[in-house]
């Protein structure tokens, strides 16, 4: 929440000889960020100060007036107006034709350009303006009457123009939430005195003693409560200038009493509250915690049910206000109010913030209390407001006032050595200079005799009561730094010893995965980690077909393990039997569950891109989320007990697990559209082997060897087109065609989508730290083709394994170059043709050796899988 500071107002408390831009820049550098400089009146082109020279009724209209407005020209301007508040010689804003003003009759507050015209037959050469039309306020009942001394004919901006600083307020800046607070900073940065408003205490009414008694039951939540009584109040509007300032600062004028409390809050920073004294029962104010379930109807006519952590202001019988947050409807100042109980108190920041947050009642007062208000302010602010009520609401101030002050904070004293300043800032600052800088900020600095000679001698610094943000020496160092300016501190590079350096393989290898997939033609996406729980639940539905040799389809919690059949792996993208990790306060139901799998996000990205691309290949690397298992929790506890990891704080052992995964999707034509993709090739679609090929290429890129592809049962996948990606005893992941129901759930019906989904941690763990060199033969290689006819039931991987096993070291390479079924190959069998490369490290292989090896291979395949040579 930014605060608005009109310079015309600020100028009352401090001299502003500098340009507004200069002021804004210096404040910003010093930690008080001016977000915007708003120039009021810069848009008032062709609007000047006019004087009502004549005023007569329109002959043809009851409600209209004709006035000649003097603006210093030879001839006054004739204007017809419907306003009823004009008087002879009043100074008013006069807009000439061509001036742009706000349309007071449109709800949207659009802008209109003034043109000369006729109203009921009488010429009107411009307009006299209301405050609303000039953008000064919402006031549109009458014409804005200017000060009597406003010079006729000068541009209106010269009279009413202003510059407003919008200051962003960080949580430490409670001290600048007032004009005087900002003035203090300006004075400290630019020099010059601060002029605090002084109010005489003219208390000549009957004494407050006997009329009011105040008790603070919970001094931990209310450290000070001051109160005054003002009688003979006449409620009415506040003076124009006061309303004007409230509006400029962003508040709405209500009536003189309420406006005065707000004005003093904006001026001094002390929130005030005015009660209608006649509604306070028993002549008593009690500041106490609410009773559980106690109720209060607040100013907005909502019934609030309170708990024991809420602080209330009560009278002898009931709560009359939520302390520091909002008043009660019962005790509200109304048009008939004549006696005001003025409260000026200091409340506990945390309690106020909690109440304002829980009841959704943000307010200017709560905002200030949350950021801590100066305890010393209650009396000056109360006196200032009472005096203004005396002046502007006809009030008589009761003699004496109440000041309950059970918990005064003692002034904080901090030791600061010049050595500490240099240790944190990197430049030496002399003791006397530190003292001078802090003194400008109203710190009281005691410089010991020997401080100049010895930078380790501490200066004793007494903190002003309004600086609740300064508690330790580092805070004082910041004060020194922002006073000398961060720009006068040099730029140096770290010159200490380097921490032990090590190659970060975890990071580099993960980036290698990204690069490998890029090279395979996949684009990286980053999707939302929270996904729709409902969409996820819908995905849970595809089930593997009943198969007698399988264990129950759902493996235990998050663990992927082989199903009962030794060669079939069960794979689930996530375990739907575990409770999801749901967000209590999601932005929408589309993002209410932390993703247990990357697939939903990828499918969303795929769908978006299929609108513009026939071929889409995407991948994502990221964390997935699930609750920790009992075993994982126990392991963390054991590790902490053994000192392997830092001690656990409450809840830490139970923190969720964030498995990292890499997953991808491919669909559409295999080759990018081009002149090379002739009609037939252009219709060739990405299939299972493209997806598998991506993994094979990726594994080669990462030097991950010994990966095999085994049959799998995976509910989200096509039952006949899915493979478990296995290395040793570990499941790296899965590759396959997505189940048509999964595609349909993302409105991608009928589209064949290929997917892989790997455990990134397992993949990175499988990467060898360093590849070992193996010798390259200097002798010629012999390449031979071998076409084998094998029964369909024999997997290609089995044939290949037998080839490698039998070929031994001399068989250095093999490639399947043809796969054939159909005549003359008998039904139920297929032909697999391999190019075999034989080579020895130490000699040229003889024909005889190669022939013998080949014969041995053929015999082995015939014996083991019934293969025959294709002739």
């Amino acid at each position, binding site marked *: 929440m930014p605060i608005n500071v009109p310079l015309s107002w600020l100028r009352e408390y401090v001299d502003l000889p500098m340009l507004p831009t200069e002021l804004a820049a210096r404040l910003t550098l010093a930690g008080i960020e001016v977000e915007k400089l708003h120039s009021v009146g810069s848009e008032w082109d062709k609007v000047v100060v006019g004087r009502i020279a004549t005023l007569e009724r329109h002959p043809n209209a009851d409600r209209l007036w004709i006035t000649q407005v003097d603006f210093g020209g030879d001839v006054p301007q004739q204007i017809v107006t419907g306003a009823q508040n004009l008087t002879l010689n009043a100074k008013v804003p006069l807009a000439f034709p061509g001036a742009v003003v706000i349309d007071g009759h449109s709800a949207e507050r659009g802008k209109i350009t003034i043109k000369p015209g006729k109203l009921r037959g009488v010429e009107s050469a411009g307009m006299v303006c209301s405050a609303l039309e000039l953008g000064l306020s919402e006031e549109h009942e009458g014409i804005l009457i200017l000060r009597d001394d406003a010079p006729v004919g000068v541009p209106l901006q010269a009279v009413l123009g202003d510059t407003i600083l919008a200051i962003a307020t960080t*949580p430490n800046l409670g001290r600048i939430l007032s004009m005087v607070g900002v003035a203090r900073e300006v004075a400290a940065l630019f020099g010059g005195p601060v002029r605090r408003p002084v109010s005489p205490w003219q208390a000549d009414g009957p004494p407050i003693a006997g009329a009011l008694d105040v008790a603070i039951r919970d001094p931990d939540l209310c450290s000070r409560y001051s109160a005054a009584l003002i009688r003979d109040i006449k409620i009415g509007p506040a003076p124009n200038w006061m309303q004007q300032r409230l509006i400029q600062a962003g508040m709405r004028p209500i009536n003189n009493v309420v406006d005065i409390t707000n004005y003093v809050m904006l001026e001094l920073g002390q929130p005030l509250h005015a009660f209608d004294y006649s509604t306070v029962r028993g002549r008593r104010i009690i500041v106490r915690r609410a009773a559980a379930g106690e109720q209060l109807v607040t100013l907005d006519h909502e019934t609030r049910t309170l708990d024991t952590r809420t602080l209330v202001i009560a009278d002898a019988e009931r709560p009359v206000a939520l302390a520091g947050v909002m008043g009660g409807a019962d005790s509200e100042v109304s048009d008939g109010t004549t006696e005001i109980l003025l409260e000026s108190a200091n409340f506990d920041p945390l*309690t106020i913030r909690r109440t304002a947050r829980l009841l959704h009642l943000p307010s200017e007062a709560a905002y200030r209390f949350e950021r801590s208000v100066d305890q010393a302010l209650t009396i000056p602010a109360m006196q200032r407001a009472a005096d203004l009520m005396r002046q502007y609401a006809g009030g008589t101030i009761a003699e004496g006032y109440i000041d309950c002050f059970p918990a005064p904070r003692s002034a904080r004293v901090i030791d600061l050595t010049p050595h500490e300043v240099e240790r*944190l*800032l990197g430049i030496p600052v002399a003791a006397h200079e530190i003292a001078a800088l802090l003194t400008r900020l109203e710190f009281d600095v005691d410089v010991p005799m020997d401080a100049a000679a010895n930078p380790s001698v501490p200066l004793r610094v007494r903190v002003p009561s309004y600086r609740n943000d300064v508690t330790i020496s580092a805070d004082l160092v910041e004060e020194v730094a922002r006073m000398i300016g961060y720009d006068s501190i040099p730029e*140096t590079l*770290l010159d200490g010893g380097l921490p032990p350096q090590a190659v970060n393989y975890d990071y580099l290898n993960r980036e290698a995965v990204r690069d490998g997939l890029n090279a395979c*033609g996949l684009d990286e996406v980053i*999707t939302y980690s*929270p996904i729709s729980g409902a969409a996820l639940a819908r995905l849970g539905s595809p089930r593997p077909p009943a198969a007698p040799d399988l264990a129950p389809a759902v493996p235990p919690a998050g663990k992927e393990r082989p199903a009962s059949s030794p060669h079939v792996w069960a794979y689930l993208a996530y375990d739907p039997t575990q409770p999801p990790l749901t967000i209590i306060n999601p932005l929408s139901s589309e993002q209410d569950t932390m993703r247990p799998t990357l697939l939903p996000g990828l499918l969303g990205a795929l769908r978006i891109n299929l609108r513009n691309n026939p071929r889409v290949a995407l991948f994502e690397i990221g964390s997935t989320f699930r609750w920790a298992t009992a075993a994982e929790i126990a392991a963390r506890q054991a590790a902490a007990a053994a000192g392997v990891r830092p001690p656990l704080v*409450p809840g830490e052992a139970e923190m969720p697990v964030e498995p990292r995964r890499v997953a991808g999707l491919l669909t559409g034509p295999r080759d990018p559209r081009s002149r090379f993709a002739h009609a037939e090739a252009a219709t060739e679609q990405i299939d299972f082997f493209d997806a598998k090929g991506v993994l094979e290429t990726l594994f080669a890129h990462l030097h991950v060897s010994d990966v095999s592809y085994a049959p799998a049962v995976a509910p989200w996948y096509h039952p006949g087109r899915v493979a478990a990606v296995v290395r040793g005893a570990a499941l790296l992941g899965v590759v396959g065609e997505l189940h048509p129901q999964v595609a349909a759930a993302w409105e991608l019906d009928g589209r064949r989508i290929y997917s892989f989904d790997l455990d990134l941690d397992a993949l990175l763990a499988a990467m060898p730290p360093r590849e070992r060199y193996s010798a390259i033969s200097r002798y010629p290689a012999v390449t031979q083709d071998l076409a084998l006819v094998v029964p369909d039931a024999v997997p290609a991987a089995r044939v290949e394994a037998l080839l490698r096993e039998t070929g031994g070291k001399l068989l250095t390479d093999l490639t399947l170059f043809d796969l054939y079924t159909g005549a003359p190959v008998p039904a139920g069998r297929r032909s697999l043709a391999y190019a075999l490369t034989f080579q020895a490290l130490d000699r040229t292989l003889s024909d005889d050796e190669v022939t013998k090896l080949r014969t041995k291979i053929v015999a082995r395949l015939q014996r083991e899988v019934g293969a025959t040579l294709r002739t």
Partner: protein
Amino acid sequence: MDTQVTTLQAEAEAALATVNDAAELAEWKARYLGERGALTALLRGIGALPKEGRPAAGQAINVIKRALEAQLAATTERIQAAGLGQALEAERLDITLPGRPQALGGTHVATQTIRDVLAAFTQMGFAVVEGPEIELDYYNFELLNIPPEHPARSQHDTFYLTEQLLLRTHTSPNQIRVMQRRPPPIRVVVPGKCYRAEATDATHEAYFHQIEGLAVDRGITLADLKGTLAALARALFGADRRVRFRCDYFSYVEPGVDLAIDCQVCGGVGCRACKFTGFLEIMGAGMVHPQVLRNGGIDPEVYSGFAFGMGVERIAMLRHTIDDIRLFYTNDLRFLRQF
């Protein structure tokens, strides 16, 4: 005989000059140098000469023969070269036709930005570490001097999973996690996803990336912070950039710093992009708060340090003039492939 020889040489040379292809050359060779060629005939004619004249005549003929053979070799080379040239000319391509497209994927622009930032810091001896995205309130707030009901909490609209568990609102909890695990000297950078429960618009996303940094050692100063982060800003945005450091507030640093670079849109004069300040904020930073050092198990009387945090998307938006942060998560390839 001499005349005959000279005439023959002249004739052969003239004929050779008109030879244009391999066939004509073969014909020429047969006519003059072949077994039935003119030179052979002349050689045979030597026998008819007087005995004393024979050696001279033979010598003369051989001289011519060698000369013609040399010219034959040269012409053969010339004709072969011409033939190859013609063959190659016939294979001439329209090199302006498009090439054969290869499928190539790209990394997300956020990833590219993270890589650039991490590369700059790793050159300065910073190590890359990572931490959990689901954090404890204790680490995300309390250990960073943001107890419950602290006003700073209103700057962090937070997604909660339980009362204790939340989606981290910044990467700063890793300052503590790192200090608890590594003794000084510490230099780390921590990239990662962060989450804020706030409405999205062109400059706000509920989900975004941050990069946190931390350096702790004896004698680390605000001047070191300035030098290190200015070096980064210039590495990312150009060596000639002006860098502005100003006082700012974050509960876990003291003194606190805001770092801005001069606006590239207006050159520092002031425009809508920089809200007429001439500067664009790129990160928050500061000297690590003594209590935060203590929370990490480090003695603030002995050690000091600086910390910083920057929004990855913000950096990427400034570097690539992207005007809407929501584009990062649309994952529209028409956007992603631009980088």
